[in-house]
């Protein structure tokens, strides 16, 4: 039972981080290997904010989200957009963007190391128990889950109820057709990339309320987010949310039953199963 509840809480927070990558990969079509580093940057900024002000880490979101949005917009304009323009084909762009973001991820780790040092950082916020179905859980996990749920719902509504969201979904389905109906694809892609980065950083901010981070952990979170996106199906928000819960349960089960150090193995097992059974993901469409 406690596995289910912890898995649910963890999965809900993962959903936010994975939705960020989903926007970047599903809409902007950039396989961003530096996604995890953005998440760590969000977590570290929250740590720094909490250490400095002692105000609720939730307020740090006001700082983290716009900051990450601007940062990712700049990354897209400076590094990714030139590649989009020089790419002759989608395949070439994929190779180039993988290489570029791989390089950016190392730069990000270097910058984080320079600012925050190489230690594990965590802080204690709302570390008091709440009782759900008679068992005790950390209040911070519940708060992070609720905050994540609110943000996810907001993002979902924005994507489905506004014109900008519609444009984003159109680009996700078919960039060249979206261009034909006078959607500015370059702008929309940049927006999706920046928004994705902001959402991921918000996820990192919330995760930092109950997880411990160090600067080199980014790759693990990149991988978790990627597994979630692939498991759920590229370009499908519903799938991402469902897959986040699956990964949350799988990780919690492995951590409680076998060893807490093997969480990445859980993600890999899921990844293997998807690749062998249903490579297009749970909600993905099989290519014709």
């Amino acid at each position: 039972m406690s596995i289910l509840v912890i898995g649910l809480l963890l999965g809900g927070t993962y959903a936010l981080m994975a939705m960020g990558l989903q926007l970047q990969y599903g809409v902007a079509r950039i396989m961003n290997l530096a996604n995890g580093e953005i998440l760590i940057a969000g977590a570290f900024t929250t740590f720094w904010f909490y250490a400095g002000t002692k105000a609720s880490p939730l307020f740090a979101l006001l700082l983290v989200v716009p900051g990450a949005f601007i940062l990712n917009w700049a990354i897209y304009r400076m590094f990714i957009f030139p590649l989009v323009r020089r790419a002759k084909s989608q395949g070439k762009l994929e190779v180039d963007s993988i290489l570029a973001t791989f390089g950016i991820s190392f730069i990000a780790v270097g910058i984080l190391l320079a600012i925050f040092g190489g230690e594990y950082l965590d802080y204690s916020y709302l570390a008091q128990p709440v009782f759900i179905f008679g068992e005790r859980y950390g209040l911070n996990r519940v708060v992070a889950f609720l905050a994540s749920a609110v943000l996810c719902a907001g993002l979902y509504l924005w994507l489905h109820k506004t014109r900008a969201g519609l444009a984003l979904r159109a680009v996700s389905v078919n960039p060249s057709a979206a261009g034909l109906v006078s959607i500015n694809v370059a702008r929309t892609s940049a927006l999706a990339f920046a928004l994705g980065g902001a959402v991921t950083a918000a996820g990192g901010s919330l995760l930092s309320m109950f997880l411990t981070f160090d600067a080199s952990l980014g790759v693990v979170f990149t991988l978790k987010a990627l597994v979630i996106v692939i498991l759920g199906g590229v370009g499908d928000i519903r799938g991402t949310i469902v897959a986040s819960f699956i990964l949350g349960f799988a990780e919690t089960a492995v951590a409680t039953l076998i060893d807490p150090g093997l969480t990445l193995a859980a993600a890999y097992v899921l990844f293997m199963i998807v690749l062998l059974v249903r490579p297009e993901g749970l909600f993905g469409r099989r290519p014709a």
Partner: protein
Amino acid sequence: MTDNLKQRPPMLADMAQAVRGQLVVTAAERRNLVISVAIFIAAALVPLIFGGYALQLAISIVMYTALATSWLLFSGPTNYIALSTAAFFGIGMYTVAGGIDLLPYPVLIFGAGVMGAAMATVVGLATLRVSGVYFVIFSLGLAELVRQIMTWLQHVLGTMSGLYVTIDRSETEYYWQLLLLTAAVFLVGWWIGRSRLGFALRIIGNDELVAVHCGINTAIAKVILFIISSAFASVAGALVAPRWGYVEPVVAFSPFVSFQVVIMALLGGTQRLWGPLLGVVPFVLLWELISIEFPSQTTLLLGVCFLLIVYVIPNGLTGIVEDAMAGRTDFRAQLSDAAKRARSVVNDPQANLGKPIREALDQIRANSAELGGTVRDSLRTAIERWNSRNA
């Protein structure tokens, strides 16, 4: 899809020979063989002349040449960027470290290759049948995954966090062992390039759909190559394990190894077998400089170097060298080409960057018109004055 075909006109003849399974050595290849053997012999003599620090550098260079060239065997023709070298390298180290009390060392080196090949088979069969991106993602976290599993295994088995490997070897012996491995990598690479497998891979790299329609089993071809490439990385790990003496998960599976291998191969160029060699030598020296001068900023600087290579020399040093050797580097043409490119950037209304430059140019043009006017006016006055004085 014709990129590689264009670079190498005698491909059709090659193809016919490869299909018939014949080994025909052309004059150019004989020349290259002689050059390679000469380089190998010269390289083998290095420890007899140099010692100490220079030999340590030479060991690094040879090790990374083996790793980067074996990386290229797979990632070069297929364009699938493997980020998993560290995983296989670490597996090789652990095979030696774990079995050193049970089996003789040469057996363990062979065993390391087998272990690497086994893991590559599983990874390859799972990911290479689907799409390139999934392979890259899988390879990205592979080192971290194996590290977690090793840490867990050591925890369960109750051993310490690291393992000792005590074999007495001199630096010269390490160097020669790695040099032999490098030679083996090159030989295998040369053989693959001539074989049906290599030909199939070049087609896959250019256009996978075409390859499928030619009747190539693309998945099997890719998996075989990935296995070969990974087995070499594992053997390299096995060869240097005793040199490190103490093997622990954090060090053995450090992501830096994967990163450095990719960066060196890209710097050298991925279109030729000897490409990584050109990248390894300058990069090992540069890396040495960086780690001495800026020990706390290594990650950051490594990332910067990586981006510079990706953006500034996408074809690597081999691209530049080959152009120069083929006399294709017509500097005048290059200059006019660069000017054309600069002009197109400046005139492109979409690029915001162009706007300030365009304005500056207009400014200069206006200024020079003004300046020209002034010069012309003063000349005219001077002439008039001259005329009036002479009149």
